[in-house]
């Protein structure tokens, strides 16, 4: 498997709790317009709403990296939504590992409540990606 990936072309999916950024609707659209189809946002009413199937579908449709942005520990509006989300992501990590993909392709990002979703996204886009291009990318 290719171990290098150009972060300028990586395909990214971001599931996020809408409470992380009250202006998320405007802020995410700006990045969507800029980057086009290589970035996909999936707003959730609470990160606890995430289902492992959604994470697998994102990987299956060719995302190189899938991030789940949650509220920080102890700050979930619904008390336990984020801790449930972390467990479900861990379960999905086990499922992709079973088929030979790196569990690092699924990652939790805990928001500190200070950054908007576009700021969080830009910091993710600037990071080096430690996994290769997804073998599931559409040709």
């Amino acid at each position, binding site marked *: 498997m290719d171990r290098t990936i150009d972060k300028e072309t990586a395909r990214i999916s971001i599931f996020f709790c809408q409470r992380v950024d009250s202006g998320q609707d405007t802020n995410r659209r700006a990045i969507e317009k800029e980057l086009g189809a290589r970035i996909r946002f999936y707003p959730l009413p609470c990160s606890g709403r995430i289902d*492992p*199937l959604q994470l*697998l*579908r994102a990987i*299956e449709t060719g995302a190189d990296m899938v991030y789940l942005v949650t509220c920080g520990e102890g700050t979930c509006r619904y008390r336990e939504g984020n801790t449930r989300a972390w467990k479900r992501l861990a379960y999905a990590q086990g499922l*992709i590992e079973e088929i030979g*993909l790196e569990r690092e392709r699924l990652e939790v990002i805990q928001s500190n409540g200070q950054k908007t979703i576009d700021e969080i996204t830009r910091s993710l886009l600037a990071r080096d990606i430690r996994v290769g291009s997804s073998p*599931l990318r559409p040709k």
Partner: protein
Amino acid sequence: MITAERKSLSEIKAMIAPYRKILLVGCGTCVAECASGGEKEVGLLASQLRMAAKIEGREIEIKEITLDRQCVYEFIDQLTSLVEQYDVVLSLGCGAGVQAVAEVFPKLTILPALNTTFIGETRGSGVWFENCRACGDCKLGLFAAVCPITRCAKGLLNGPCGGSKGEHCEVDPDTPCAWQLIVTRLEERGRLEFLEEVHPPVDWSKSQGKGPRKIVREDQKN
């Protein structure tokens, strides 16, 4: 409720290796409740199998369907128009469901994707607990609704064994001692006299002693 756990992906992949077109059939009853064979789990397994095939450069086609009950003919009949289009049926039902589908379609290959585990209760979110062995001769009324056959590791009807530690079983320290529970409950109910009864050995002929059991109700037949 019947509980089950999914087989490892490597075992499932080995079973379906000779086939390209797969009908993946879940069950919306017991195994959906224990999160092993319902609609979501069908979706997860189908996604895994599709991705694994793509990574390995194999072609595979999967049709997902979840029946309300995989052990009842009226629901299995939904597969009638589908099965001939597929090479194999991969079932996410319990053992009863797999066999029921095979009875209806005897010429087809039906493969199990689950290991059926036990009859139990949902003790909490994500926790299932075995509490019935379907022995066919329920004596819960004598034991304060705690089944010693299932919940005592030694299956003692005339317990306790004396080996429990801190109210837990000496065989598995994570399991509460069934006889501790029985005695405590009978004490709370003021019915400790139940403990004076000496129970004869279990009549296993009502369980598996005579092969598979059958219930026939004329009033329920068509």
